[in-house]
């Protein structure tokens, strides 16, 4: 599609214009960092943010989401009656500003998960109303990032608009017609000139050396590394350390597992069935009636997470289960990290194979 240019000072006007027709979400400053939140005033938007605790996935799959409402009662003869009515929560025109490339990769996976097989209309109806405006990462968020290793340092093809900061302007690529229309209708963006494009090229090529590689292997090798390392010693060590707190999965832009619970009104007749984020790191996750737990040890759960991130998700959906965003590493209080684990596994396997 086409490249446009919008000067930085015109951005607030764009945001304000959008607010008339959309809920506008973007990174804002919090007392301790940044978070994706609804923007009420244009100047809250912090496009030069580093990272957030929760990825923007919370707007795509809310922490707690109502699936349907129910009403139970009884008819005059005493027979039970039950009515159910589906709920599609948070389906409203929404513009999400400033998604980093890694987080867009997470949403690309979500789109597959919830549309393939049984189509999850709760997700899809919400998704249809979303406009994604990405922002090109020009600097690593911090030392925990390993997006370059995971190949997510460039924008995946799911954005409607994608912005790159070039001096005092944003160069904006349009990823969809919807995006282009939005840009033209709500902002003063102009077509980019050759000069702009040259500057963009310089900015993009200059960014790569700023990012370092952390993995001792390429991302394409992780599935086989994990297959070989299924019974490696490292899992026991990590299992010992792990707090089983699930922080790593909750902050992960590709984790989507959920629990389903019923909530009951005080009248004991009406209520809602909701889904809430769940984590495979928790003891109960694979426990079944009779007390058998398919992942009893923390070691098996830590391994399962790494398997999912580095192998299983790729097997099923063809996309990497890890975006290299580094959030799990920042969240973990006992320093269990994906690069650290994969590298240790790599070393252990090398020793084992005598290489």
């Amino acid at each position, binding site marked *: 599609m086409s490249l446009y240019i919008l000067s930085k000072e015109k951005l607030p006007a764009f945001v304000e214009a959008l607010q008339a027709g959309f809920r506008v979400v973007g990174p804002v400053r*919090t*007392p*301790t*960092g940044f*978070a994706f939140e609804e923007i009420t005033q244009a100047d809250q938007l912090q496009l030069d943010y580093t990272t*957030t*605790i*929760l990825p923007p996935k*919370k707007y795509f799959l809310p*922490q*707690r989401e109502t699936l349907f409402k129910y009403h139970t009662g009884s008819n005059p003869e005493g027979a039970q009656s039950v009515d159910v009515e589906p709920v599609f929560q948070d389906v409203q025109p929404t513009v999400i500003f400033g998604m980093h490339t890694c987080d867009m990769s997470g949403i690309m996976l979500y789109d597959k998960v919830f549309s393939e097989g049984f189509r999850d209309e709760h997700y899809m109806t919400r998704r249809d109303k979303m406009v994604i405006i990405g922002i090109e990462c020009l600097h690593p968020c911090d030392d925990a990032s390993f997006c370059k290793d995971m190949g997510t340092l460039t924008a995946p093809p799911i954005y409607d608009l994608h912005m790159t900061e070039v001096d005092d302007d944003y160069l904006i690529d349009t990823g969809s017609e919807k995006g282009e229309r939005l840009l033209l209708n709500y902002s003063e963006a102009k077509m980019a000139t050759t000069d702009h494009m040259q500057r963009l090229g310089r900015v993009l090529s200059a960014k790569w050396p700023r990012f370092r590689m952390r993995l001792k292997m390429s991302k394409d090798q992780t599935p086989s590394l994990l297959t070989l390392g299924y019974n490696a010693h490292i899992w026991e060590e990590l299992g010992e*350390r*792990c*707090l*089983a*707190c*699930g*922080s790593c999965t*909750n*902050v992960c832009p590709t984790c989507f597992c959920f629990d389903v619970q019923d909530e*009951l009104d*005080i*009248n*004991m007749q009406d209520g809602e069935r909701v889904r*809430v*984020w769940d*984590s495979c790191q*928790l*003891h*109960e996750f694979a426990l079944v009636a009779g007390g058998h737990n398919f992942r009893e040890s*923390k070691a098996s759960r830590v391994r399962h997470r790494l398997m999912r991130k580095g192998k299983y998700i790729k097997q099923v959906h063809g996309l990497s289960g890890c975006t290299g965003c580094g959030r799990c590493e*920042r*969240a973990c*209080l*006992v320093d269990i990290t994906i690069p650290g684990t994969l590298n240790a596994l790599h070393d252990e396997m090398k020793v084992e194979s005598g290489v």
Partner: protein
Amino acid sequence: MSAKPKIAFFDFTSCEGCQLTVIDALQTHLGLLDLVEIVQFREAMSEKGQNYQIAFVEGSCTRKSDEARLLAIREQASAVVALGACAHLGGVNSMKNRWPIENVQTYVYGQNGKDAYESYPARPISAVIKVDAVIPGCPIDRHEFLRVVQMMLQGRTPRLPDYPLCVECKLRENACLNTLGILCLGPITRAGCEAICPSYGDGCEGCRGWHPEANFDYMREILRGHGLSDHEIDARFTMFNHYQMEQMSGHAPLSEAVAPVTDTSLPTSSFAAPKED
């Protein structure tokens, strides 16, 4: 629906904050009164019915004479629910257990304290009678209270979350206090309060008790990283859970560290105890 189930509230050694939370729950959920009939609630009413099916017991058992009352409640009720940390864990009351009981009696009440103020080490009520369900917390969470009542009315056994508080804390997108230099016991504490303390900037103190997989060794490592001494770590671990830590390790945490225990003459605080006339 048939006759409303009758419920009763009882208090033992406690601050009555949990009962107060029940009263507060009525602010938003007056409908509770349509579901159950409250027949005893000393803090809020004069009527005293003896005919109850569910007994909510607040407070720890801290003296021999409490036991008979607890047994009588157990005898009458078809279900006993421990209301709050005092009843569930022993709670703050168990902090005194690190000393011989005479030590605390005389410290606060002078040399006569031993005789005038009956007491023994604080215990959760489950140490005395069988408990069917627990509503943890200091104080309890009012929504959890309502949920437990509803579940019991549905004929279900209320179950507690078995995972750490960090789960709920992350869902609220709190910045982790332990990474900001504020101590938090969230990683070892049972969830269910929606991480209310970390959400208000103060570390979790473990009032809901430990979750079954609590990793004490690495929690200690985290706290040592804050520069805490072992004594301070034990002080944090035992604010609500002295009884549990003692049961787990077989000895009263912190007890060696306190001088008066080795001192055979019992301490009388010039500071706190009333003067002898």
